[in-house]
């Protein structure tokens, strides 16, 4: 819901936005929204005490959760600066901490001491995506909880690339989009090799006094003795050729190739590539690429070799297939729905909690109230366990449903439906099972104390017959 506020003496638009968690570099985006929401102000850059400002919906809900925690943690004493949670090492930032400072001081154990500066930074960013927004101002706010566990860089090298962005950005920008994808397809070892090379170039630049120029893309290329420039060109050419081969491949293999499993697909693609008339030409371009782009050889110091079809190339081709045939993920619609809910997801979560606990409990209590006085305690006992069993059954059903889906290899919609059905079935059967279990326990206790008990006249008569 939109909110109207009255401007107080001493307020500026900057202060009003900052109170709602907007960072200085984001203010210009929100100013536009504020202007369109308040046409009555004329020039909203000048506001006066008593003015009414209408804040757009999204502005009110824009305070991210971590910012709330950040405020809450700002009073953490020095003694708690380096707590541990299981194997996860944590670090609370203090005023004046910088990204590189934390990376350098915290990764000092035997295993991590030898890591290069850029790798340390990359690991820190990989563990703490929140830091990406603090790369530009450099100084970190106090009270951030950082995970400094030196985990291996995983399949998500996005943060790694973001860590190296200042160096790579200009250079990578010169590549066409397809080739950029190829770079991002690299495994962690290749990416590390690349980072190592860039650092060596920096050091080489520093030695001959052109460090500042090495930082820029042009100097980087010149220090690389023209090899990188040739590589950029070859990457573009290779990419153009690959695009052409995709088109042929889609024509020849069609949907069949896409729906086959990965191993089959790689085999088909390899065969197709080798038989393609333009294959030798493509290989020539790949040979012209710097070795570290296609292989991990640079890291080991071996001579670059790019003469084969590497998994990276095949993955690149495969990715293009999926894109070409519009393999859309559920995140496309799920995230849209979530953004339209605009912060009201907690309402849905509350409804979910009510369905799990409150509604079964209310139904159970109704059963208890409407039971005959003789069996009221027994019903209470059984219904209580029924609620617990229903919740546990639903939860176990969700978990089991996910496992079944993964074995069958179903898609997003299949996953959603299966999990939903398994959760419902689990909830119902769990409720029935535990209700009976609770009943058995009650009967057992009652029969130990006072012999058999009878719940109806018919049962009593039946026992005499």
């Amino acid at each position, binding site marked *: 819901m939109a909110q109207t506020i009255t401007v107080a003496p001493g307020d500026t638009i900057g202060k009003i936005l900052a109170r709602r968690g907007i960072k200085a570099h984001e203010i210009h985006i929100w100013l536009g929204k504020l202007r369109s929401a308040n046409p009555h102000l004329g020039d909203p850059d000048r506001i006066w005490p008593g003015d009414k400002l209408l804040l757009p919906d999204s502005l009110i809900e824009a305070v991210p959760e*971590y910012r709330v925690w950040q405020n809450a943690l700002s009073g953490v004493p020095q003694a708690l600066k380096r707590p541990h*949670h*299981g*194997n*996860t090492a944590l670090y609370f930032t203090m005023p004046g901490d910088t990204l590189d400072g934390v990376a350098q001081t915290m990764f000092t154990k035997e295993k991590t001491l030898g890591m290069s500066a850029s790798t340390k930074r990359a690991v820190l960013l*990989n*563990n703490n995506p929140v830091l990406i927004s603090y790369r530009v101002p450099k100084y970190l706010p106090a009270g951030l909880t950082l*995970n400094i566990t030196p*985990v*291996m860089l995983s*399949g*998500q090298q*996005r943060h790694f690339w973001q860590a190296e962005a200042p160096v790579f950005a200009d250079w990578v920008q010169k590549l066409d989009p397809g080739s950029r994808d190829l770079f991002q397809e690299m*495994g962690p070892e290749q990416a590390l090799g690349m980072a190592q090379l860039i650092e060596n170039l920096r050091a080489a630049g520093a030695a001959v006094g052109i460090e500042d120029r090495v930082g820029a893309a042009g100097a980087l290329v010149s220090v690389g003795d023209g090899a990188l420039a040739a590589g950029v060109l070859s990457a573009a050419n290779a990419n153009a050729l690959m695009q052409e081969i995709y088109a042929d491949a889609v024509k020849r293999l069609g949907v069949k190739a896409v729906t086959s*499993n*990965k*191993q089959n697909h790689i085999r088909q693609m390899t065969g197709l590539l080798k038989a393609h008339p333009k294959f030798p030409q493509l290989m020539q371009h790949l040979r012209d690429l710097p070795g570290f782009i296609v292989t991990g050889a640079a890291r080991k110091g071996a001579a670059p070799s790019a003469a084969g079809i590497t998994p990276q190339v095949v993955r690149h081709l495969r990715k293009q297939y999926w894109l070409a045939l519009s393999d859309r*993920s*559920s*995140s496309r619609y*799920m*995230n849209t729905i979530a953004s339209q*809910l605009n912060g009201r*997801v907690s309402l*849905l*979560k509350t409804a*979910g*909690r009510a369905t*799990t606990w409150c509604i079964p409990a209310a139904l159970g209590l109704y059963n208890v109230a409407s039971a005959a006085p003789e069996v009221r305690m027994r019903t209470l006992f059984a219904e209580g*366990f029924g609620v*617990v*069993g229903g*919740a*546990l059954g*639903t*939860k*176990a059903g*969700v*978990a089991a449903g*996910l*496992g079944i889906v*993964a074995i069958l*290899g179903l*898609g*997003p919609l299949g*996953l*959603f439906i299966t999990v939903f059905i398994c*959760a419902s079935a689990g909830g119902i*059967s769990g409720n029935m*099972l*535990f209700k009976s*279990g*609770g009943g*058995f*326990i009650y*009967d*057992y*206790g009652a*029969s130990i104390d006072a*012999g058999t008990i009878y719940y109806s006249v018919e049962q009593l008569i039946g026992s005499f017959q």
Partner: protein
Amino acid sequence: MSTVDHLKGIWGISLCFWGLYGLYVSFRIERFIVKRYESETDILETFFFKEHASFTRYIPDFFSSAMYTSHLLMLLWGWRLYRNKKMYRDIKDPETIISHFSAKEIRLVKWFAISCAIVMVHAVVFYAIKWI
């Protein structure tokens, strides 16, 4: 009191014990697994959660924790079964995910699966007793 009555009573006590224990374990798991998956790591950025189970973050923690638990169990116990599945195509090594959890946390996750299995065995016994 007949033997069958004894069996029923003992079965009921055992079922409810394991059920309550499973629920207790699941609450303990919920305390760390939701945080770890949703805010402390970028596991939700993997294809599995980004493209296949993207609704997970919008359901109550009680259920999303079950999905995360199941995901972790697939990596822990069933990697041979799942590694060639499309939904796991960006996970080269399950250790990259597992290493975000301590040994104690992994133990809890395994206990949840074990207690669920025990409860399922009880369900089978329940129907067997009904036949008696």
